[in-house]
């Protein structure tokens, strides 16, 4: 994939766009498959993948297909007017048959067990919730979905949602009053888990209303939240191995693991995708650019370890305990 200056180290799978469908005004759904027809990595509701843009930047899209199908991912993309160009590129330039570098999936919005769920979606925020509804069905849990949008025509997947009857409540803005999410959250049964994905204002209203509830009752994802940036550096960096004193240079086109292997340093790996944690390596100096699915925010902030199969460096130099 020698595409010039852009490093694509975090792209852990190149997927093929098998289908592209318009599913609402300004929303397309892409079906992605492994080019060889093989299994894709497992995921659970709430998971997202990174799509690497030609600029090397990444955008996160929730998986909104069927996790029981190991051969296809589905994502849905709303064209963001005034956005930074990622959604426009996917809408206008990406056609079926195109290969897309991707990363993940990773899951920061998992569905926790409960006998009752209240789902609240705003616009394209329906995407992570769709597989959650399917899962709630499988589990036999009680659930309702409140789905807000500008108009029916702008709200994707209404056809799929139709089969759920009155458990799905639609709130198109052009047909009635704005949903009072605070009242909705206040009225939810004490044991219910409340999941919300939508614009920042909606998420904040839900979180405010949910504040008195027990810890973990309200779980939200902002679809406009900070995007994972492109790799921090597109220049080579130095990796120093503390135990042997060896120094290596990691080029933009190589992973740290590849550079280590190239230098004859053996690191045990398993998944090679930043998922399992087997290659976790202690960082003694320098700041890692974490690109894995394993470390949480606190681990990342501590900066004392990294998964060398996918993660890179922010600093010019990393010293590893190898």
């Amino acid at each position, binding site marked *: 994939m020698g595409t010039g200056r852009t490093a694509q180290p975090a792209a852990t799978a190149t997927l093929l766009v098998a289908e592209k469908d318009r599913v609402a005004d300004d929303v397309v759904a892409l079906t992605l498959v492994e080019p060889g027809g093989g299994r894709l990595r497992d995921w659970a509701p709430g998971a997202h993948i990174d799509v690497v843009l030609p600029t090397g930047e990444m955008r996160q899209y929730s998986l909104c297909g069927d996790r029981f199908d190991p051969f296809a991912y589905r994502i849905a993309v709303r064209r963001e007017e005034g956005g930074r160009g990622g959604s426009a590129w996917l809408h206008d330039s990406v056609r079926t048959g195109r290969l897309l570098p991707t990363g993940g999936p990773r899951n920061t919005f*998992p*569905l926790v067990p409960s006998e009752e769920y209240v789902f609240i979606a705003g616009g394209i925020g329906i995407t992570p919730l769709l597989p959650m509804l399917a899962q709630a069905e499988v589990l036999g849990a009680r659930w309702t979905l409140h789905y807000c949008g500008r108009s029916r025509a702008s709200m994707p997947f209404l056809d799929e949602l139709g089969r759920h009857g009155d458990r799905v409540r639609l709130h198109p803005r052009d047909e009635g009053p704005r949903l009072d999410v605070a009242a909705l959250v206040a009225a939810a049964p004490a044991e219910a888990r409340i999941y919300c994905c939508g614009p920042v204002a909606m998420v904040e209203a839900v979180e405010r209303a949910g504040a008195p509830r027990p810890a973990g009752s309200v779980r939200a994802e902002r679809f406009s939240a900070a995007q994972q940036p492109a790799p921090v550096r597109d220049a080579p960096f130095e990796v120093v191995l503390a135990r042997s004193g060896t120094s290596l240079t990691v080029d933009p086109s190589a992973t740290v693991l590849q550079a280590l292997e190239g230098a004859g340093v053996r690191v*045990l790996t398993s998944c090679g995708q930043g998922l399992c944690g087997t290659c976790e390596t202690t960082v003694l100096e320098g700041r890692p650019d974490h690109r894995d699915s394993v470390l949480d925010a606190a681990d990342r902030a501590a900066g004392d370890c990294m998964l060398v199969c996918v993660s890179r460096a922010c600093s010019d130099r990393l010293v590893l305990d190898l």
Partner: protein
Amino acid sequence: MTTTSLPAHVPVSDADPFAPDVLEDPAPLHEELREAGPVVFLSRYGAYALARYAHVHAALVDWQSFPSGAGVGLSNFRHETPWRKPSLLLETDPPRHDAPRVVLERVLSPRALRRLREQWAADAHLLVDELLRRVAGTGEFDAVPSLAQAFPLRVFPDAVGLPQEGRENLLPYGDHLFNAFGPPNELVARGNPHIGRLAAWVDAQCAREVLAPGGFGAQIWAASDRGDITPQQAPLVVRSLLSAGVDTTVHGLAAILHAFAANPEQWRRVRAEPRLLRVAFDEAVRWESPVQTFFRTAQGDVPLPGTVVPDGEKILMFLGAANRDPRRWERPDEFDLTRDPSGHVGFGMGIHQCVGQHVARLEAESVLTALLERVETIELAGAPVRHHNNTLRAWESIPVRVRVS
């Protein structure tokens, strides 16, 4: 034994993988099954066997076609009542598997274990120093009780937060549990009279109030306070630690101690290059495969090379045979530290891959690092004796002789 007629186009074997002679030395059966074909029908149990690496690996990762919810032993939970409440990890499929797995993965992650590293290293040094003092005259000891059992029993129950009393129940409980994945043979019969008492003790240790603050057990309960799992799930997740976290690491440690005692030149190599240690443990797990087999159950009619496994039939995956498949490994029967064992299926693969693998690696690293500092050579001082278990490849005794440096 759900199948009465033999399936077409599949080699049939009437071998008993759980017979004493096979448990003593499974290699001949493994080779026979691998060479007979990608899928072999085990007529004695009405189950389909996979023994080649590629097919075992494929079945392990395909949780959709080969789910675990009907049990990972011979017993089929579609028709039979499990002897204990099914595990939320081992014997559960997505979506119910998701949350308990996420919680336990976090509790046992390498970074979570980092806070134990120093303590376990110190414990290992104490254990090794005491042992070497005790055997100072001859340098001879039995590595199974002295190290392979002693170390996990010294550190793991503390890490979980178990009380002191009753810890002797852990090994026999695990031994029976892993026997019970096989057929109801003599090994199971021997454990049956005691299992009620052992299981009651294990279940009682899973309660919140029994578990010491800060330990793995308390962290699992804390996850239930956060709503990540339910309070009903928490004790069963703790039970998984006590079920799968003790015997397996004992036999993993025994495997690597035996591997070095039987291959003294590899000990010289790792002494010269101590950072081979981490790879050494995984190579030992590949070579020995302490967990030899697990079953799955066909979900729908599942096509496999040359046949279709009918819905609801059991599939037996031979992890030990896959880890020595010459199609995947060069010189598979050699314990060789120059090999890259990555990708072995000794910890399984896919969504059920051993969640405690980092614990096992840290235990091994702790013990072996302490040994490396003190022990110049290690060799067998007598014939090692196998411990038979329907699922585990285990040692009863490994007499060794060491020369202290």
